[in-house]
């Protein structure tokens, strides 16, 4: 620290040893991985010199864009603002025009250099965005009375903008592409509807859900999920990054094939919500849809799943990342398909980016845990205080899919669950339905939120429940899913 007035103290001396400057040429990417074990937030104690090394120290990663323009998954960084990336973040910063970054902290990183834009895996994504923009502009022009403002309930006629479904195998970069396209569209002033029908990672919700939300505002660059994380949803207070309002349905499974019928129903619900949204909001209608999907192979089951999602959302553009076979198979399947609006389905193949990181079990687990914590307690920017309450076993209505259901229609969709110690630390979905609704309705109801079971006292027949919002829980059915398994004690 230099003291004003004392000229001889060389300013900034220490910073040079802890920060590093990275110069990116157009289309280069700075790829980084903040380890799980470091603790974010400290900015000073790391020493790094050589790229490709782990910088050791207490810090997460901090990044400052000192010149040029750079973005994370389509969302631009502000110049000279310090961004902090929390633990377990694997991502990249990319520039189209060249940029200089000042980075510090603990992370593994390297710069992906491309001799020409054509060699960059980002170029096709960018071009895809421009192509989609053309299509969106077409909707705008042809869309008749496009008041573009709050027209209220202007008749929802007209074909919506491009509805894009993004498919690929596991760890092929689907979500990143979806997010990038969403961010680019938003940046251009559009308000695309973004959906995720992959329960493995919740979008703006906890894992085990499928959801959709309109993205009309800047995404959170510092979110480990770059704006798709649950920290981007509304809380009772203000948020430095505009929040997104998702529509959420609860699958309670990791993989679709574990309960295909339920997933299909919920995707149907989400699809109809999307249609209604298009009908009600012409700005969203113009921008169309970006749909993230579960990892898929060419197995028949996976293809059926994708086809179902495509139908429900009237998808007219299918982007396949990385898998030539999947592309070929889908091409065959879609050949004779027409969308709801009579359009031909266009298939696009994108190469998988060489920067896509394999996410191991631990990474996913950490991500899930982090999401649950963020849901209840907020993140570095916004501390939340959930409510803890103690309720009797009989004062809550907990439902669960019977074991092995989904394959046999003769079992009820949901049944009252026996509350036991087994329920400890599970996260339950609170459904937007009435306790007295039939199971089928409850099962397909939108999710209102989540509660965590902090403790089960079988002797006294009481539960300790962590809830985001205060108030009695008894009049809302809660659904106890089968995934993700509990592993953390939130009140620990």
């Amino acid at each position, binding site marked *: 620290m230099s003291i004003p007035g004392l000229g001889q103290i060389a300013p900034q001396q220490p910073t040079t040893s802890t920060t590093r400057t990275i110069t990116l040429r157009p289309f280069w990417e700075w790829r980084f991985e903040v380890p799980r074990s470091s603790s974010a937030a400290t900015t000073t104690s790391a020493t790094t010199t050589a790229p490709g090394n782990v910088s050791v120290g207490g810090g997460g990663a901090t990044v400052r864009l000192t010149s040029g323009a750079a973005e994370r998954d389509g969302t*631009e960084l*502000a*110049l000279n*603002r310090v961004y902090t990336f929390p633990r377990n973040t694997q991502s990249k910063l990319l520039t189209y025009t060249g940029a*200089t970054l000042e980075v510090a902290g603990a992370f593994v990183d390297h710069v992906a*250099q*491309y*001799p*020409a*834009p*054509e*060699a960059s895996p980002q170029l096709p994504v960018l*071009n895809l965005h*421009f*192509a989609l923009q053309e299509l969106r502009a077409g909707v705008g022009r042809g869309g008749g009375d496009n008041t573009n403002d709050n027209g209220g309930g202007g008749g929802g006629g007209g074909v919506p903008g491009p509805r894009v479904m993004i498919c690929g195998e596991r760890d092929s970069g689907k979500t990143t592409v979806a997010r990038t396209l969403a961010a680019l569209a938003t*940046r*251009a002033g559009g*308000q695309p509807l973004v959906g995720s029908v992959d329960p493995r990672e919740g979008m703006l*919700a906890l894992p085990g859900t499928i959801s959709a939300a309109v*993205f*009309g505002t*800047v995404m959170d660059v510092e979110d480990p999920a770059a704006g798709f994380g649950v920290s981007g*949803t*509304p*809380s*009772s*207070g*203000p*948020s*430095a*990054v*505009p929040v997104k309002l998702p*529509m959420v349905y609860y699958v309670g499974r990791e993989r679709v094939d574990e309960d295909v019928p339920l997933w299909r129903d919920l995707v149907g619900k989400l699809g109809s*919500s999307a249609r*209604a949204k298009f009908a*009600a*909001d012409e*700005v969203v209608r113009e921008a169309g849809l970006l749909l993230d999907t579960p990892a898929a192979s060419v197995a028949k089951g996976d293809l059926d799943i994708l086809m179902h999602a495509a139908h429900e959302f009237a998808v007219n553009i299918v982007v396949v990342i990385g898998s*030539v*076979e999947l592309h*070929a198979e889908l091409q065959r399947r879609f050949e004779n398909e027409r969308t709801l609006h009579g359009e031909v389905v*266009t298939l*696009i*193949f994108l*190469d998988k980016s060489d920067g896509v990181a394999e996410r191991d079990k631990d990474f996913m687990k950490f991500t899930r845990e982090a999401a649950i914590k963020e*849901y209840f307690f907020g993140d570095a920017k916004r*501390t939340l*205080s*959930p*409510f803890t309450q103690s309720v009797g076993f009989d004062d809550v209505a907990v439902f669960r899919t019977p074991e092995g259901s989904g394959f046999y229609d003769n079992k009820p969709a949901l049944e009252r669950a026996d509350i036991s110690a087994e329920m400890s630390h599970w996260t339950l979905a*609170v459904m*937007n339905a009435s306790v007295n609704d039939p199971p089928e309705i409850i099962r397909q109801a939108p*999710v*209102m*939120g989540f509660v965590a079971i902090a403790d089960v006292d079988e002797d006294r027949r009481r539960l300790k429940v962590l809830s*985001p*919002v*205060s*108030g*009695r829980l008894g009049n809302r059915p809660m659904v106890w899913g089968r995934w993700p398994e509990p592993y953390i004690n939130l009140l620990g």
Partner: protein
Amino acid sequence: MADNAAEVAEDYRQALEDLTVNSRIEIATLTNIARENAHHGFAISEALANHIKKVPPARTLPALYVLDSVVKNVPTPYALYFGPKLYSVFMGAYTKVDNATRRKMDEMLKTWKEPVPGSISTKPVFPLEQVRPIEHALMAARNAAYTAQQNSFQGQQQLMRGRQPAPSRDTPTPPTTRSYQPPPQQPSYPGSNGHRPDAAQRPYPMQPANGPGTTSHRSTPQPAPPAGSHPPYQQPAAGPVYGAPQPGISIDKLKDDVQQLIVAEKAEFAQDPLDTSKQTRLKALLDLQTIIQSQDMPQDQLMIIRDRVAELAVKIRPQLPVTAGPAGGGVAAPNTVYSGVSYTTTPTPPVVSQQSTPVPPAAAAVVAAALGRPPSAASAPPATGGGVSIDSIFGQGALAALISGNARKSATPQQAPTPQPPPPAPAPAIGPAAAAAIAAALRSPPLQRPAEPPKPAASAPPASNPSALLAMLRQSGLIKPSGTPTPPPAAPLLPGFGPHGFQSLAGLTLDANPQLRPASLKTFRPHMISRLHEDLGPPCTQCGRRFKANEDGRRKKTAHMDWHFRVHQRMTDAEKRGQHRSWYVDESDWIRTREAIDTDYTHPPQDPSSTSASDHHHHHLSSTSGGAHDGGAHGGKPNSASAAAAAAAGRMMPYLPVPEDSARANNACPICQEKFEMKWLDEAQEWVWTDAVRVGERVFHASCHREAYGVQALAQAQAQAQAQGQGQGVLGKRKAEDDVGGLRGRMKMEGY
């Protein structure tokens, strides 16, 4: 915008015409014009680049100084625009000017590697990887010139033996060779001709046709002083190779080849049925076969296919020894050159060679060796090439393109003079022999630089190459060069330019907007990058969101900055109060909620009496643009009593944040005994009770209270409440008794 840009470019071109001497003032003026029209930067850069190419040698230097000045003074966007063309522009100019000017150019080139003097930016004027190829080319050209002198003779001989001259393939190259030959060079030329009459003859006829006219003559082939020596060596290579193989492609031969390939591929596939690339390749081949058999293909396209087939053949039999005798040597080199040339569309010169070359890589290696380059350079690419997704080479799309290409036999205007049809479209002006020489020289250096930081770069480009080929295929049939006549000539000028050169130009002329096709998606369009940045206006300093620099943009930005400010203020507040995650909304609310971007400040409050400046939250979210995600409204922001009164009068709707402490508030109105309606209010970023007002410790429906106690009482109560710091907001007109759909889906929370 296109019109406008064209006009600007035309004006600029005319202004450039007037620039005959090295006048500082004129150059400064031209720089300023460029600065002021930066939004048409691409058009201007095109105009300038073309001018430099066309202008007589004596006036080249001033024009280059303009470029230099523009780029240094207005680096954005010009450095970006010129970067990809740099090689072609610079080398094109270099070849035609005298030695004195060349020295000046060398100096200029040096400054491009450094930051602009006096600038804050530490970036060099042009990225090193754009300048370096030029340096390498210059150096390599000098070296090659010498080496070539020795080798050329031999090489030619071999060539002669190896192939008979054939009518040119579709490639523009041969003519190029010619066209580039500048009169001054002549001396050397004849020499070479003499050696190989065949080669010499063929190219000549072509020439007129090919020449894009303007470009053709001015450029001297030799980049380096030893110019004379170049042509000879070059020439042999170029001419014979492409032309030679077939005087017309025999369809039968092609079918045979394809058939053979299929057989070979099947065998491979059988060995490793799981290898998807093989699978796809096989499928591609089969498709191709069908097409060939069922369609009547124009020659030019057959050529392309043939080349592609040859390329595949090479891949399929990779064992073709690198050890191949020196025999092939001469041939390969030319080929490389040629390929470089032809692919105006291609981003990556290095790879190119394989594709077009029927010659085994080995040969290339030999040549390379002869030229003093490591053979590895030549042979490496093939390997990489193999990795490429075949899909992109022979994808459905490509075939479709082919087919449709057939449908319209393309006689592109530009090509018109040329005997060869469309494919070369992008390349018409291409490959003067000299240029080719440079290219050849150039080609190796990049690959050669192992010393360089271990960039994956070197190997990366090849990957994209096939797609470029595909692009060419596509363009051959699908896209008419109709558009801008200017760019194409520009591109073709020099074969070897930097990887971007080709692509960008190709993209511009042939494929201005990305289409949902593989090749189109892989085409770089530098002019579109600004759509992500400058075109959107300057960014917000806090979050990077951009706002246009027009009236509307400024208005939005004001609102936006204001939003930041309010949120910031409220954050501290909220931290103290404690906050919590909200419930998700239900379906009908979700459908109705409009995404709102910042608060729309300009809409006057609906109630004239509440026009106080702080009152921006007047819109009900489902009926306005605005439920801002900000919600600075309530919570401690005093609403005037008059606003409350207005609310009482039914014009505004009071709301109350849902009390967090259930003990402190009743959840039903004491008057009507009905529960309060709870809903998510975007503006407030909170769950609120609508139509609610707190009077003392109790909460009432505002409408009930008004009926029971009258307007004044309510106003007083509210004023009082606010004095106590109770948060309260005023909503836009929405009467309680209205059937407000937005409330249908509200969540009732009991038990507070």
